């Protein structure tokens, strides 16, 4: 199939909510820093962030700055804007985050033709402003830099 350029979904209309467990992730994203929830005791990463570490049940969390790169674990190719229904090629992508023990982020990939996306490809974070002043981490191929 030939799809052409993959575009991240327009930030306008994308809403998120936070709670005390997840807010530090989004606070960092607003400052264009990619982080993930790491256990303050055993070092295990978990995403989405949650109150307890599933490995050791600790409630201590740290939020290290990650390299901002990762590897495509899997993806889909969609061709309709879910909000408007109009033709719009985008690639939902599951990214294994570098600097973690395989914590994953589900996001969009841009800067590439959709048909060229591959599992195992290296990607780098980019930033997509969304509603209410929040910023969404999205990704682009490392090669595009």
């Amino acid at each position, binding site marked *: 199939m030939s799809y052409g350029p993959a575009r991240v979904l327009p930030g306008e209309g994308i809403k998120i909510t936070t709670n005390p467990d997840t807010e530090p992730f989004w606070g960092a994203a607003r400052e264009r820093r990619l982080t993930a929830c790491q256990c303050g005791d055993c070092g295990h990463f978990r995403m989405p962030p949650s109150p307890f570490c599933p490995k050791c049940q600790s409630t201590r969390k740290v939020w290290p700055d990650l390299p901002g790169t990762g590897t495509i674990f899997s993806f889909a190719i*969609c061709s309709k804007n879910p909000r408007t229904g109009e033709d719009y090629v985008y690639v939902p992508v599951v990214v294994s985050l570098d600097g973690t023990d395989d914590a994953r982020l589900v996001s969009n990939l841009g800067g590439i033709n959709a048909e060229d996306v591959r599992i195992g490809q290296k990607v780098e974070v980019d930033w997509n402003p969304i509603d209410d002043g929040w910023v969404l981490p999205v990704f682009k191929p490392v090669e595009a830099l």
Partner: protein
Amino acid sequence: MTWVNQDKCAIVGIGATDYYVRGKSWPRTINDMAGEAILKACEDAGISVNQIDGIAYYSTAGAGYLDKFDTASLMETLGIPYVGFSATLTSGGGGCPGAIGLATAGLMNQDCTYTVTLMALQQLPQHRLGVVFGSSAPNPENSFLQPSGLVGPGHLMSVLARRHMHLYGTQPEAFKEIVQATRENALDRPKAVRRKPLSDEEYWTSPMLADPLRRLDFCLETDGAVAVITTTMDRARDCRHKPAVVHGVAHGGTREWGRAFAWMGMPDPDFASSGHKFVADRIWNQTGLTAKDMDVALIYDHFSSMVLMQLEDYGFCEKGEGSDYVLSGKIRYDKATRGGVNGGVPVNTHGGNLNEAYIIGMTHIVEGVEQVRGTTVNQVEDCEFALVTGGPASLPVSGLVLRRA
């Protein structure tokens, strides 16, 4: 170890409304359809609705995830005098066969005598299952998923299918074969929504909704209701039809699957799976049987790729070999011999969620019952054991082995 409640309960009544294309059931109401299914199941069992004293739901009693079943309301509507058991399995459609296990638990605990399990759904334009995830209000957890534009269950499953293709070389032709093979079984099903043969061209030109999955890899959007009645074996023998004996049933799963595709954190090889391995192993331990002992398999098919992964998780073939297994014709039902093809076990002889109707797993239970009764349209010759599965979804998923009485 043999299950302590093996062969002690049976499904004795099945009832269903017509199956409607999404939204076409209006001006019927969802409670009207649920009631019709229950009354028909009672009639099929040869009992009065007044004898129902237990209700075992799944999907957290969510009628199509959109409304909620309410036991008191059903009792009032149908005139059920009392209940001694009212319980629901958590999570989604993965709990459907498990709800029969829940009914069995109530019956074996002597809380009830005739237990109904039901699902009804009606997808009016504002209430479509296909977009229910995407249109739900953002919460702190789904804020890590929704913005990606993975808005429906099929979008989520496509990501799993992609990983399976990557790891094992699974071919898109295998997805086509699953849709076509089960479509063949729907052709002479009077109530089936899709009853025309499916050509290769029609499949390949079906729109890619979430590459690698096409519209025809997605289940139907259906309105309708199905109910079944479970009771103890001593009572079952007095019912109208031959009992479909509950030989093994289990629900559950492991944390590696856990929140599943609402999370995407599953490690390999669980990511490219149906999350059914734990339940499958339990069922085979309970019964001492294996996949190869099944005469028919009614496998939850909300998306074609998930049939393939369940075939692996239940051991119809090895992990990673689902594509070859399917492509060798082994899920086909052969009308001439009334049996499997090439040593396989016929899958979804009723057409499944992909072709007959999508009542969130209940049609698979009905077909399992009819197969071991010996009364279904695509009857497997001498059918002794039927496997019924529910899910994949977030846990629990579930499975059931019905045995001919």
